[in-house]
């Protein structure tokens, strides 16, 4: 009997429209995030989608420090901190512990959701190795969610491997001689993880500006089983330097300008969805300047920088093997 649940997951049907979303909250008051914080919303929607039979593990980052300042906790479900580079290990260890205890009859058998979250610092930089390893352990069910606010937003806004080209951060301030310190292109984390872990059954990108869609992706990842990964783009008023009321709008613009495509890789099949799907099907993308110039972190950009940024995004859509996802190009015939 215990074996029945060895790899079983909770079956979480998608919410069919905003009115069908459940009322219960599992991330409530008690947090101290900034006004307009999109990542706090991601936490709230993530665990709302997962439901009460869930364990959440949080790597060091602003969603640790700002949420669980001692004596307060917004978490209604069990929550535990893990090290900056350990979201993968935390998910794996928790899932393995539960599995061992259930298999050996030391704990009541039932599927329990295990979610580990990390910021882009913990996910795209330091913890990448551990996440990669966890995505190869297909016998343990867990979801790793990377909330990507494109900087180490907890420590003073330093650049990460996920910070966009040219952005002004405290590690890449524009100066009198060098306008751009940070000239690396943002890591393609979700696609890298999807391409490199062929037995990982679900990798998706989400943006909480499209909240129901985002929650349904979480539900799909948790239901499908095995280790799964979701990359969420989270506008950050403090790090990106904009009016907090614009968080949702910036998330939408990131998608509409083609900077952050929404897609999922489910059992090896790539699907674009939402506004991104419309772009793939021919709807014109908005120019990236509309997105970039709303943010103080790009205020030092010249026309030349904007053009470079636009050209890189165009390349991603026009020349990649899978638009906005897989950066390979087919070799021209005869070469």
């Amino acid at each position, binding site marked *: 009997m215990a074996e029945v649940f060895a790899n079983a997951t909770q079956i979480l049907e998608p919410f069919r429209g905003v009115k069908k979303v459940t009322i219960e909250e599992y991330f409530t008051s008690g947090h101290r995030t900034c006004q307009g914080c999109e990542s706090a919303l991601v936490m709230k929607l993530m665990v709302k989608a997962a439901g009460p039979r869930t364990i959440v593990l949080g790597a060091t980052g602003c969603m*640790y420090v700002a949420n669980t300042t001692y004596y307060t906790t917004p978490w209604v479900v069990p929550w535990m901190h893990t090290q900056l580079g350990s979201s993968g290990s935390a998910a794996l260890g928790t899932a393995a512990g539960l599995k061992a205890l259930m298999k050996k009859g030391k704990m009541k058998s039932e599927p329990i959701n295990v979610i580990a979250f990390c910021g882009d610092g913990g996910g795209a930089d330091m913890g990448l190795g551990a996440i990669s390893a966890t995505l190869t352990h297909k016998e343990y069910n867990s979801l790793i969610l990377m909330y990507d606010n494109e900087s180490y937003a907890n420590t003073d806004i330093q650049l990460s491997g996920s910070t966009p080209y040219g952005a002004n951060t405290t590690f890449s301030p524009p100066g009198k001689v060098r306008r751009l310190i940070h000239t690396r292109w943002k890591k393609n984390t979700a696609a890298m993880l999807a391409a490199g872990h062929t037995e990982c059954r679900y990798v998706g990108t989400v943006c909480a500006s499209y909240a129901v869609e985002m929650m349904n992706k979480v539900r799909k990842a948790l239901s499908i089983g095995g280790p799964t990964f979701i990359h969420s783009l989270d506008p950050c008023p403090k790090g990106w330097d904009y009016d907090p009321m614009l968080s949702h709008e910036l998330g939408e613009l990131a998608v509409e300008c083609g900077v952050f495509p929404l897609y999922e890789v489910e059992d090896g099949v790539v699907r674009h969805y939402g506004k991104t799907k419309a772009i793939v099907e021919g709807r014109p993308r908005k120019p990236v300047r509309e997105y970039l110039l709303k943010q103080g972190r790009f205020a030092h950009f010249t026309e030349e920088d904007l053009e470079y940024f636009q050209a890189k995004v165009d390349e991603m859509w026009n020349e990649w093997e899978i638009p906005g996802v897989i950066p390979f190009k087919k070799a021209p015939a005869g070469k």
Partner: protein
Amino acid sequence: MAVETKTPAPGTMATDDREMLISGSEACAEALTLADLDVVTAYPIRPYDTVMQAIAKKIANGQLEAEYIVAEGEHSQFEIVKHASTVGARVFCGSSGVGWMYAMECLTVTPPLRVPMVCMVGNRALDDPGAFGVEHNDALTVRDLGWLLIWVDTAQEMLDTTLLAYRIAEDRRVFLPIAISADGAFLTHSQAIVQVPTRAKVDKFLPPYNRGDLQLHPDNPITVAPQANEDWVIEIRRQNNEAMNRAYTVIEEAYADFRKTFGRGPENPWFEEYMTEDAEVILMGMGTISLPFKVGIRNMRAKGMKVGLIRPRWFRPFPTEKMVAALQGAKAIGVIDRDYSFGSPFGSGVVANEIRAAMYNADKRPPLLSFICGLGGREVTLEDVYKATDLCFEAAKSGKSPLKTQWLGVRE
């Protein structure tokens, strides 16, 4: 003369124990099987990895049912078991040398989270230079972090200590992690006859791991390890220290119960005394270094030299009063460190400095000599033993501690 850790005389041993010719690492794996381990992580580094090889074989053969996870690095290895332990699983992992250091962040956070992990350090020199031989600096790095820390000497002690470790660590009065230090090669890879008890006896001695109200489970929705800043950190450290203090009682109880259940094990959990009763010179050293020292001591005793050995087992918590009492009768003490602490007081090893600290308030403070010996697995010769002993007898005569730390067996 006190020769404490001898094999029990025939007839005193329980008849249902099995005798096996196994290495220290394999003895550890036998104990882990008897302890019904739930989750184990592995990552290769010599010499500790032999324990993982032994566990892998046991799992493959169906002798142990546990989640066996080959991790992608030591950092992950220790985090995986830490989290498995928080949901209630009995766990094990380990490492050696720089691998242990690579996990250091995870080793640091384990005691304040009160995760009673049991780990093995197959003691190994730290890089560079790359070396596989034994040194104790790797394990000693957790000395100040809240880990319980013990050195073992024989394969039998490895098995027994592993069972004791779970009993002590998982006692709710303690709830701290334990690092079991086993000398690389000399213990991890060397075979000896080991008495392996039955599962029934182990079950009697070792209750199931119960995490109680600290268990992370949807039925117990707690928030673990919130962020505290300057608030409460000192209280949390104080609580850790009190748990460490309570370990003194729990260790004594566990060893007493161990002797009752298995019919073997030391009267004194804290350190082994070898021919110390009338000793004028007491030599001290941890782990397998005891072997050349015991041989040397027997030879010197035959010549009428009154010399004995104290081999510390538990380093954290440190048995201060008992150690001081045991050293009071000596006319000189020679501490042999298989470790170093560059730039420390008198350039001594870690153990020597620890013994000096313990003796500071003692009524009698015999001269203390510090030796560094056998680093990187360098053979410790009888000549080294005799040289150290001679220097100790000189100090006993003069009544003064030479401040210079002697490095034994070094090519000059």
